[in-house]
């Protein structure tokens, strides 16, 4: 039997996109949303997350390694596609293309975001609290950079969820795929709201 390694890697890539990366993304945005209830609430929630036992191990195995794998294979997948929306401008073909564009934007955003927060905290240059994010987001350029980054990541997650359901053979019929499109649109708006609402709080204090 010929090799089946690619199949395994692609299924792993798909799985990691939702478990744990997608779950982490939603959890991360929910915890951050505590900022909307005030500085005190945010610091408490962030403090709880940062105080979890074995936090570094959790971060490595639940976040860093999965994202690293998904991102590296993801970039490869992006560059093996020959996008053709000009000839075949169907809705799903656009989603396919935007899934790849948002993958790249998300990569840039995550690298910068992790460098500016987690790495600086690790180096002892910053502390994980409300003031750190307020300092970053009151700069209008960074505010818009974060808005684009969050929307791109959430789009990539929501549309990825749709495609995950197909990759795992859960939605097969055209009808179920259509309904899961609507469900993923709802996910996109709901999770985007969480993220953007939090950014507005940090940037404008409202």
């Amino acid at each position: 039997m010929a090799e089946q390694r690619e199949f395994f890697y692609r299924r792993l890539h798909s799985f990691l996109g939702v478990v744990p990366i997608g779950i982490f993304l939603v959890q991360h945005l929910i915890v951050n949303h505590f900022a909307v209830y005030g500085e005190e609430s945010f610091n408490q929630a962030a403090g709880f997350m940062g105080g979890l036992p074995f936090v570094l191990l959790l971060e490595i195995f639940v976040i860093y390694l999965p994202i690293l794998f998904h991102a590296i294979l993801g970039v490869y997948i992006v560059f093996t596609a020959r996008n053709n929306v000009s000839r075949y401008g169907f809705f799903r073909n656009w989603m396919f293309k935007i899934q790849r564009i948002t993958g790249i934007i998300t990569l840039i955003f995550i690298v910068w975001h992790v460098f500016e927060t987690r790495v600086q905290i690790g180096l002892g240059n910053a502390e994980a609290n409300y003031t750190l994010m307020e300092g970053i987001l009151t700069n209008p350029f960074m505010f818009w950079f974060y808005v684009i980054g969050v929307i791109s990541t959430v789009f990539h997650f929501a549309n990825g969820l749709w495609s995950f359901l197909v990759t795992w053979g859960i939605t097969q019929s055209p009808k179920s795929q259509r309904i899961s499109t609507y469900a993923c649109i709802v996910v996109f708006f709901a999770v985007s709201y969480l993220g953007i609402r939090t950014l507005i709080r940090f940037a404008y204090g409202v």
Partner: protein
Amino acid sequence: MAEQSKVTFIITRQDGPESAPYEETFEIPYRQNMNVISGLMEIRQNPVNAKGEKTTPVMWDMNCLEEVCGACSMVINGTARQSCAALVDQLEQPIRLEPMSTFPVVRDLIVDRERMFDALKQVKAWIPIDGTHDLGPGPRMPENKRQWAYELSKCMTCGVCLEACPNVNDKSNFIGPAAISQARLFNAHPTGEMNASDRLNGLMEDGGIDGCGNSQNCVQVCPKGIPLTTSIAAMNRATNIQAFKNFFGSDSAL
């Protein structure tokens, strides 16, 4: 109608597999109910281009002339389709003809679709019933299953779905939609089902089903209306289950 008296074709030509492509324009007299192939036949009869220069006849592939063999597929005004079923009256002029870019060009509009037949071999898209003695009648097929399987059996290996797929190209080894759907067809057959795991393992080989990224162009362009994306999702499920069986299961000799 005066302006209807001529039909203009802009054809991407190529003299051989290794030579560079070039464009040539032809103007031919309009006739009623022309299709692209009758236009090409007109050019073959009188191979003179729009500048009045004598040139070689344009080569293309065809067979059935009724959209069942798939041989005449080419890119017409930007979309891949069968030239025998493309009516000149329904096309915007000038009519642009190109060979399908997914496949190696043999000459002019003729491409080599061998990779599609290799793909059918990879997924064993046949039913192995040859024997030295009469095996008797096979199991019967439920009528509702026969009905959807019949739809899948209409595939003519034309290559239009591969041409439209952003993941079938020279940077990727993705098998393409057609063979995935054929694996589903033969796995649906009551006798073919006996070798279902062989076909699924073929789909899981490198350059198999995993290259699908769900652009779903295939189902939009298939001239036979084959539910390719349903087939792909169904085979996604079946290969995932097969992968678990291969690893955890007990239905192999070792």
